[in-house]
C-alpha cells in the first residue's frame, strides 16, 4: 500500500500539526452544528414525508449516510484523516449483518457513509447526548439496552432484508488492550441464522481513540484502512447442538480471535517500517 497523497492546501512541517489541531476542532464544531441543524429540519421532514414508518426511516438513513460522507470529505480535505476502503461493494447486499472493531470515534461515520441504509445498534447513553441524539432518533437506530427484545428486533430487521451494523466491543477499544467482544452480535447471528460480515478498521497513527483528547493529534495525518471481509458463517456453531448461550460464547470467542488476527495483519501492512523492507 502506498503512502496516501497529502491534502492539497494543508501546510507541512511544524505548521501541519497546528493546522490539524485546528482542523479537528473545526470538524467537531461542524459535526455538532450539522447534527443539530439537520436534526431539526431535513431529518424530521424526511421522516414525516411519508406515513410509512419504515420508508421514512429509510429516507433519513440515506440522508444521514450522505451527511457522513460529506463530513468525512471535510476531515480528509482538511488533512485531519485519510482513508482507504477495500471491498466496499460487499456491503451492498440486502440483509448484511455487519460487525466491525472499534478503534476510533469516527468508525461509525466511515461505515454509515459506506452504507446508504443500515440499522445501527447504538449504546443507550447516546440518546442523551446533546448532538448525537438527533441522528440516532430520526434514523431509527436501535438501543443496546433492551436485552431479549433487542435480539428479536435485530432478527426481524435481518429477516426483512435490512442491514445491521454492530460494534461487538460496545465501545471504543482501550489502546493496548486486546479486543473484548460482547456476546450480543453472536446471539443475533445465531438467532437469525445469518453469517457475519466483518469489517476490519485500523488507524495508523491512531487518533480519536478512547481517552484521547481532541487536540492531541498524532505526529502526522491519521490514516485509516477499512477492509470488508468475506462472510463468517455460523452454521458450524449451530450444528453443535449446544445451548444458545454456550454457542454464543464460542462464536464470540472465534469472532474475537478472527478480528485480533485481521487487525494485527492489517496494521502490520500499514506501518512504514514494513513498507521500507519492501
Amino acid at each position, binding site marked *: 500500500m502506498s503512502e496516501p497523497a497529502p491534502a492539497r492546501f494543508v501546510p507541512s512541517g511544524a505548521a501541519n500539526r497546528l493546522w490539524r489541531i485546528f482542523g479537528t476542532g473545526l470538524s467537531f464544531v461542524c459535526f455538532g452544528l450539522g447534527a443539530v441543524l439537520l436534526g431539526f429540519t431535513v431529518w424530521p421532514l424526511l421522516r414525516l414525508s411519508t406515513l410509512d414508518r419504515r420508508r421514512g426511516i429509510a429516507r433519513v438513513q440515506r440522508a444521514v449516510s450522505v451527511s457522513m460522507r460529506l463530513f468525512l470529505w471535510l476531515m480528509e480535505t482538511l488533512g485531519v484523516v485519510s482513508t482507504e476502503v477495500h471491498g466496499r461493494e460487499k456491503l451492498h447486499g440486502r440483509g448484511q449483518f455487519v460487525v466491525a472493531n472499534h478503534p476510533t470515534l469516527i468508525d461509525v461515520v466511515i461505515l454509515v457513509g459506506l452504507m446508504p441504509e443500515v440499522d445501527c445498534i447504538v449504546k443507550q447513553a447516546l440518546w442523551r447526548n446533546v448532538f448525537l441524539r438527533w441522528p440516532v432518533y430520526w434514523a431509527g437506530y436501535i438501543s443496546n439496552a433492551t436485552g431479549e427484545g433487542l435480539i428479536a428486533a435485530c432478527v426481524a430487521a435481518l429477516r426483512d432484508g435490512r442491514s445491521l451494523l454492530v460494534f461487538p466491543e460496545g465501545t471504543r477499544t482501550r489502546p493496548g488492550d486486546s479486543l473484548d467482544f460482547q456476546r450480543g452480535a453472536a*446471539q443475533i447471528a445465531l438467532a437469525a441464522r445469518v453469517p457475519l460480515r466483518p469489517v476490519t478498521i485500523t488507524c495508523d497513527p491512531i487518533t480519536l481513540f478512547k481517552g484521547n483528547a481532541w487536540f492531541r493529534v498524532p505526529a502526522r495525518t491519521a490514516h485509516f484502512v477499512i477492509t470488508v471481509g468475506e462472510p463468517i458463517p455460523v452454521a458450524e456453531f449451530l450444528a453443535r447442538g449446544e*445451548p444458545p448461550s*454456550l454457542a454464543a460464547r464460542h462464536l464470540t470467542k472465534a469472532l474475537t480471535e478472527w478480528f485480533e488476527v485481521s487487525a494485527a495483519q492489517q496494521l502490520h501492512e500499514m506501518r512504514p517500517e514494513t513498507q521500507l523492507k519492501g
Partner: protein
Amino acid sequence: MQSTQEIFDQLRKVLHELFEIEPSQVTLEAHLYNDLEIDSIDTIDLILRLKELTGRKIQPDQFRHVRTVGDAVNAIHALVQNKPAAA
C-alpha cells in the same frame, strides 16, 4: 427437600454446563453479571434449566432481585420449599 448446600453444588454444575464458567469462580458472593458475565439472554437459558431441574414453574420476576450466586441459591431454595404454585 434440598439443602442450600446441595442447591449451591447443583447450581455450580449448571453454570459450568450452560456457560462454561469455572466452578472455582462460583462463590456465594460472586455477582452473576459483573463477575460471571451472565447476561439477560443467559438468564433465560438458566431459568429454563432450573425449571427442568426443580420441576417447578418459575416466573422470571422471582429472579428479578437475584444479583449474586447466594441470592440465586436462596431464591431456588424458597422455590423448592413451597408447594407448586397455582400461577
